[in-house]
């Protein structure tokens, strides 16, 4: 259970070789302004590196971004690796250029939500606040 006062810890990372980091950075900054503690891990990371950092930093939320089309290969892998490393239950949310038809498979792979282009940060922040409780429950 997270108490109401505990600051939400978020890790934002870009798996794969994609360099488009405008969205990831804007979201990182927006969530910080919304009162969360945000670690921006940067780009060109393997799923292993991201999972490792998530466990070490003991984050509540992981935000992944990819605009290169590698999301199906990379996003679910992060979830699997966190589970394999015995990390706590984490909310994994993703964004980027992700076709609608890939969303069911991503959700099956443990991704909680997909936020496409044009999503207001307020919506992401609200989603995190409401869904963290569910994950913990």
């Amino acid at each position: 259970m997270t108490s109401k006062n505990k600051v939400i810890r978020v890790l934002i990372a870009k798996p794969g070789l994609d360099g488009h980091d405008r969205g990831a950075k804007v979201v990182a900054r927006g969530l910080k302004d919304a009162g969360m503690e945000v670690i921006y891990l940067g780009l060109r990371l393997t799923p292993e590196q991201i999972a490792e950092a998530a466990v070490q930093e003991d984050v509540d939320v992981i935000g992944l971004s990819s605009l290169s089309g590698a999301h199906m290969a990379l996003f679910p892998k992060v979830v699997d690796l966190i589970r394999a490393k015995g990390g706590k239950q984490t909310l994994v949310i993703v964004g980027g250029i992700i076709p609608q038809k890939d969303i069911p498979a991503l959700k099956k792979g443990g991704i909680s939500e997909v936020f496409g282009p044009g999503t207001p940060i307020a919506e992401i922040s609200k989603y995190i606040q409401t869904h963290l409780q569910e994950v913990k429950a």
Partner: protein
Amino acid sequence: MAQDKSERKNEFKTTVDGLPVKRVYLSEDGSGDGSLPGEYPFTRHIMANGYRGRLWTMRLYAGFATVEETNRRYKYLYQQGTTGFSVAFHLPTQEGYDSDHPLSEGEVGKTGVAIDSLQDMEQLWEGIPLGEVSTSMTVNATASIILAMYIAAAEKQGVDRKQLRGTVQNDILKEYIARNTYIFGPKPSMRLVTDVCQFCAEELPEWNSISISGYHIREAGATAIQEAAFTMANGMAYVQAMLDRGMQIDSFAPRFSFFFAANTNLIEEVAKFRALRRIWAKIVKERFHSTNPRSMMLRYHVQTDGFTLTAQQPLNNIVRVTLQALAAVLGGGQSLHTNSYDEALALPTEQAVQVALRTQQIIAEESGVADTVDPLGGSYYLENLTNQIEEGVWKYIKKIDDMGGALEAIRLGYVQGEISRSAYNYQRAVEKSEQTVVGVNKYAVKEEEPPTLLEVDASVGQRQIERLKKLRQSRDNQQVKLALEKVKKVAATDENLMPALIEAVKAYATVGEISGALREVFGEYREPSIL
């Protein structure tokens, strides 16, 4: 009614840079510099006859899956009337990994075509005579290797390298700032960039050795003024690096080219292009003491601003692209890529690409805007904005000069910080509805995604890896080993790397292997994360 002065907003500003916009502009608000098209400082156009002589090159950025699919797309585009090619490489090629590298997982053939070796490059151009076409290649950290492959592929077709026409992006500084496909640190990277520029100056007289790019800086969030200023600052850093190698300004500057974005804010963008021509001409003449007008001419490619494409109501993007393309043409660019309306959703389908190309053809052949040079020149508002943008750019240039130039400003994170701030400000403006995005924060509807999107299936990765395996079995591996040793040896000296790279690619050494050899000598760069 004529007396009614009430207005629908408290204040009017240009949408991007927030410059104040007056109710009406009069002759005292803005006048040009009096130069004619084709005359220094080239504000109105670099050529006296503008597009009356030759239209801009219609060049669509394309590349996906393997060389077979991309070769087919190129032939299709050629048949549809494009006048130049523009190669999109997948990320592993751009970042120096082979398709079978663990970091390439999921990326093969996704953002561009998979090129691992000269064999792929030869097949990419199968049936396309490289002596007759003009090709632009978006590649930076591995630009030297890919250019070596292009030269080798052309020579296999029997084409003399002196005949080759095109551009290699080769602009590493904006990679650190915005696009993020660097491999090595700034010092060895600048050496590779200038190796290419020098080699082109000496061996490829018709080739643009660099395309100094504001486009990605803009896409990362910069305003029009920031895009212009940071690109000019990078351009000066490249010129200086060439001078430091002992080259004379007019031996290489005529083959320096540029690349900018065109946003929907039409007049501000036209003003930006005019201001840029004037600024670059002044820099090259006054700062670098060029005496050749060709060195002073800002020649550039334009791409419509990808960031403005919305996933919501994607057909609206056709209208955005039209306005942006119009800005590019009214601004006087030499080459133009128009985005496809479905690109906020996936790589474009053939149909969407066709609409994008037709947009340019309609502007060129139906609208009449290409029939006179700089048709908006003399508009009080446009001239006023041109002057204001120029002033804003010089302010930034001064600031960057004071820091010690672009390399230093990038090392300090200044440029990246400025862009991040603009990106965040824009996002907040959209969320507060101060900035309208039609179909997103206004006039939104509930909608389904359009059903037909282009897909690059996972088998592409497997096919490419198989092909690479076969290559490694069939080539002369001893020769590859020797060639890679030579690359390392030359990399450790000040000698130009291009000849050794050409030798290595001709031995069918791969992008990953050659980059690996260079990594051993140069090391790798890891970016500071600047939010």
